[in-house]
């Protein structure tokens, strides 16, 4: 009756229709109840993990897995040769589809890898009789070739461009899949061989990326453009539904049975003992029947859904840090939330930095040596004026990690000894730099700071302007250069049209090579070196180190390169943001937004009995 009352006046006709519908529904349910078998009644309810993301993938094709959202899904729907250990920190490589780490030739140029036996694609109409066939080495060759095929419009080719013998030529010759690539071969159904142009120690890391996921050619041919929403892979999950608001993945019942090993995954009882992960020992992932992913870009909506219990996981919006955290250092969950949720505060695997466009003679390199020196002083003064403490406090709740240089804390080569002291501003030094080099309010150049039209970006600009005001930079000489979309902004800075630009870089793999390459001269725009930085010593060191395996010698070279960029005052850098992740205590899990990323889905389990206990029963 209450329900009718809430609905307001209901006409007799509508009442009759509703009653009719209810009657039909009841009749439809009755035979189902009667016919249910004993085994169905005894079956446990499906286990569901409800994940939230602050953005949505536009495609599920691994060739388009450029965003963190697309990558999360790609590595669950498809298989990559390698992944990162679930629990080991720092991150460590682990074979995934590959049966062991690669065998590398003495000169570092030939990588041989074997696939695990008995791995099958999911059943799909793309295959004869709808039965998924075994994954073969040839599928990997095809998948990498797709990245270089202009028809695919793939976004991952840069990972292997100029690296694999004959691959770039294959593209130039028309991307004919019948034509073999000398450096990319399937020696047999389960053996792959990659031959490199020059040593590339990061190759194995690139094979953890969603871009390198293995796709079957039959499915690509069968679905054509629709392949973007009809994933056919061999990953732990298969797609049930997908749209711009959500995706539902269900367990791939044919996924290879690999019992979970705490020690192999790098379990640390001290820091991870409270998460209930011990129960995973011996169980074979995937451990959930169903993964429901909600794509909610709006912070408030995502947070409210989480608090209402509609989600099991959230990356907490910065605006909620005040409500969520009891303490900042170390970040600690408040008592009310701690009853129901676990917290982890991870540093992002990347950093935010503001680059000077060194190609702009107003502030970068200048043909006149005197002006070049003055520009250097100007850049250094701006860096000295930048208040990282305040930037961190305002935009990252004071829990970001501020450091100088271009090697972030997530990189193993980060120099903790040197960077443990927070970067401090020096206004006096900044003012002196300006005055000693003849800069004054009248002759200072107009600074154009580029950003997309969002509230946060605008506030960052206003904050920068206020910092510069403190060293006498006239307000009217610090101008915004706004862009409606990130695409417009990126186009402008790739065309070297933006004088000062803030970039957030997420590392593709835990190796400082991935960040120092951002300042390598030949990578200048439209490449990844958006600062258009070009220092001959730096470039020489980069070339020298590019073929080196991780070692103390290589780390020393990276650190020298880091210091060169700092001395040249080419970038205002930087901060690694701390991400606050919350998840339901009813789950045994360790979520990750970094290198493990989407790989953790397969290990999420409902908290309960341990695998060993189950086995004993």
């Amino acid at each position, binding site marked *: 009756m209450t329900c009718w009352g809430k609905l307001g006046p209901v006409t007799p006709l509508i009442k009759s229709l509703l009653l009719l519908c209810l009657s039909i529904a009841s009749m439809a349910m009755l035979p189902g109840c009667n016919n249910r078998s004993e085994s169905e009644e005894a079956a446990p309810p499906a286990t569901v993990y409800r994940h939230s993301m602050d953005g949505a993938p536009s495609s599920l094709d691994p060739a388009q897995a450029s965003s963190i959202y697309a990558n999360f899904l790609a590595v669950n729907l498809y298989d990559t040769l390698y992944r990162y250990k679930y629990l080991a920190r720092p991150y460590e490589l682990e074979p995934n589809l590959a049966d062991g780490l690669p065998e590398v030739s003495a000169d570092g140029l030939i990588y041989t890898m074997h696939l695990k036996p008995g791995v099958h694609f999911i059943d799909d109409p793309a295959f004869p009789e709808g039965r998924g066939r075994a994954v073969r080495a040839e599928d990997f060759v095809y998948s990498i070739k797709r990245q270089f095929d202009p028809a695919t419009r793939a976004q991952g080719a840069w990972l292997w461009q100029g690296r694999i013998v004959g691959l770039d030529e294959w593209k130039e010759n028309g991307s004919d899949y019948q034509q073999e690539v000398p450096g990319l071969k399937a020696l047999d159904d389960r053996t792959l061989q990659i031959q490199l142009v020059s040593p590339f120690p990061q190759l194995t890391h690139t094979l953890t990326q969603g871009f390198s996921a293995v796709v079957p050619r039959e499915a690509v041919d069968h679905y054509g453009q629709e392949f973007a929403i009809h994933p056919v892979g061999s990953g732990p999950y298969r797609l049930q539904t997908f749209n711009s608001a959500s995706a539902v993945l269900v367990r791939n019942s044919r996924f290879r049975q690999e019992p979970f090993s705490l020690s192999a995954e790098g379990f640390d009882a001290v820091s991870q003992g409270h998460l209930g992960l011990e129960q995973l020992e011996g169980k074979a992932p995937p451990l959930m029947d169903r993964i429901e992913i909600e794509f909610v870009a709006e912070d408030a909506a995502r947070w409210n859904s989480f608090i209402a219990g509609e989600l099991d996981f959230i990356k907490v*919006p910065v605006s909620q840090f005040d409500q969520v955290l009891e303490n900042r250092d170390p970040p600690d969950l408040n008592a009310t939330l701690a009853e129901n949720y676990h917290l982890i505060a991870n540093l992002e695997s990347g950093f935010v930095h503001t680059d000077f466009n060194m190609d702009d003679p107003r502030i970068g390199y200048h043909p006149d040596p005197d002006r070049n020196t003055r520009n250097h002083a100007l850049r250094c003064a701006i860096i000295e004026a930048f208040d990282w403490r305040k930037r961190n406090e305002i935009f990252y709740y004071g829990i970001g990690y501020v450091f100088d240089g271009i090697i972030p804390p997530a990189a193993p080569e980060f120099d903790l000894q040197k960077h443990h002291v927070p970067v401090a501003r020096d206004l006096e030094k900044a003012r002196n730099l300006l005055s000693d080099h003849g800069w004054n309010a009248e002759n200072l150049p107009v600074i154009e700071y580029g950003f997309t039209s969002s509230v946060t970006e605008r506030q960052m600009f*206003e904050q920068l302007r*206020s910092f510069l*005001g403190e060293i006498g930079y006239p*307000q009217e000489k610090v101008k*915004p250069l706004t*862009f409606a979309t990130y695409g417009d902004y990126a186009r402008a800075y790739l065309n070297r049209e933006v004088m000062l630009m803030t970039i957030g870089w997420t590392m593709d793999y835990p190796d400082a090579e991935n960040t120092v390459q951002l300042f390598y001269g030949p990578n200048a725009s439209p490449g990844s070196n958006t600062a258009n930085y070009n220092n001959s010593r730096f470039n020489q060191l980069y070339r020298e180190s590019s073929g080196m395996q991780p070692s103390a010698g290589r780390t020393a070279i990276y650190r020298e390169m880091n210091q060169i960029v700092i001395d040249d005052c080419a970038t205002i850098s930087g901060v690694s943001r701390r991400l606050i992740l919350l998840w339901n205590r009813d789950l045994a899990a360790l979520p990750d937004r970094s290198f493990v990323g989407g790989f953790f889905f397969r290990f999420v389990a409902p908290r309960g009995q341990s695998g060993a206990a189950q086995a004993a029963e």
Partner: protein
Amino acid sequence: MTSDSRIWRQLKKNRAGLAGLLIVAVFFLLAAGVWTGILGQDWSDAGGGRWEPPGKEFWFGTNLLGQDIFQRSIYSVRTAFEVGMVVSIFSTVLGAVLGSLAGWYSDSWIDHAILWLKGVLDSIPFYLFVAAVAYALQGQDWAMHIAMIATFWTTTGRLVRAEVMKIKSREFVLSARAIGLPDLLILSRHVLPNTLHILLIQTTIAFVAAIKTEVILSFLGLGVHDGVSWGLMLAESTQEVLAGHFSNFLAASLMLFALLMGFNLFSDALQDAYDPKQAAI
């Protein structure tokens, strides 16, 4: 009694209208204070702490960056008046010119062309069109103004056209034509001055609409590029309200409400004063 004195008498009788005029005058004084450098000059300084509550130092509190919300609210009055004045004046002039041409040359190709243009512009959803123009011209300081002027003139043009069609058959116009005065001279000297009441009312209406549109466009990131406006303050407040801080939201929305209410009351009073039926009462 002259027409002007009659209108002024009518206006004085309308208390709500006078209150509106007073509110607008106060806001104008604030805007003048900003123009002359007396008020709101520290709107971009980030000298305070994050989200400080209202107090002696910061009357309306501070925002995320520690900027004084009072200073920003006051500076935004200048932004509102600048946008309102530029858009209302230019759109009224454009509407007057095109409307009078269409009315004077009614049923000619000039009239048809202007009506076609007006019909096309009116058929596009207003905010969608303004946002599209502002987006297409992004980077230009005057993008938002151009977008609004391009759409606001149509109503004025329609009203002026109808009035000119009515006036052009009046005896004084026929006399002017009879003595051989050129069309443009008759239009500018004898016809347009008789549409002044429409133009005056339309200017106030366009002023209000321009301020509202600026706030919406700035909120969407398509409006003010360099500076501050109530729209930008409201956009900032979307994040602050989540964290339980309402100063930005309240300051911007109350200031906007007060100015719009003042203008609306004054505009209504002006319409009543010019209405001959009201005069007869």
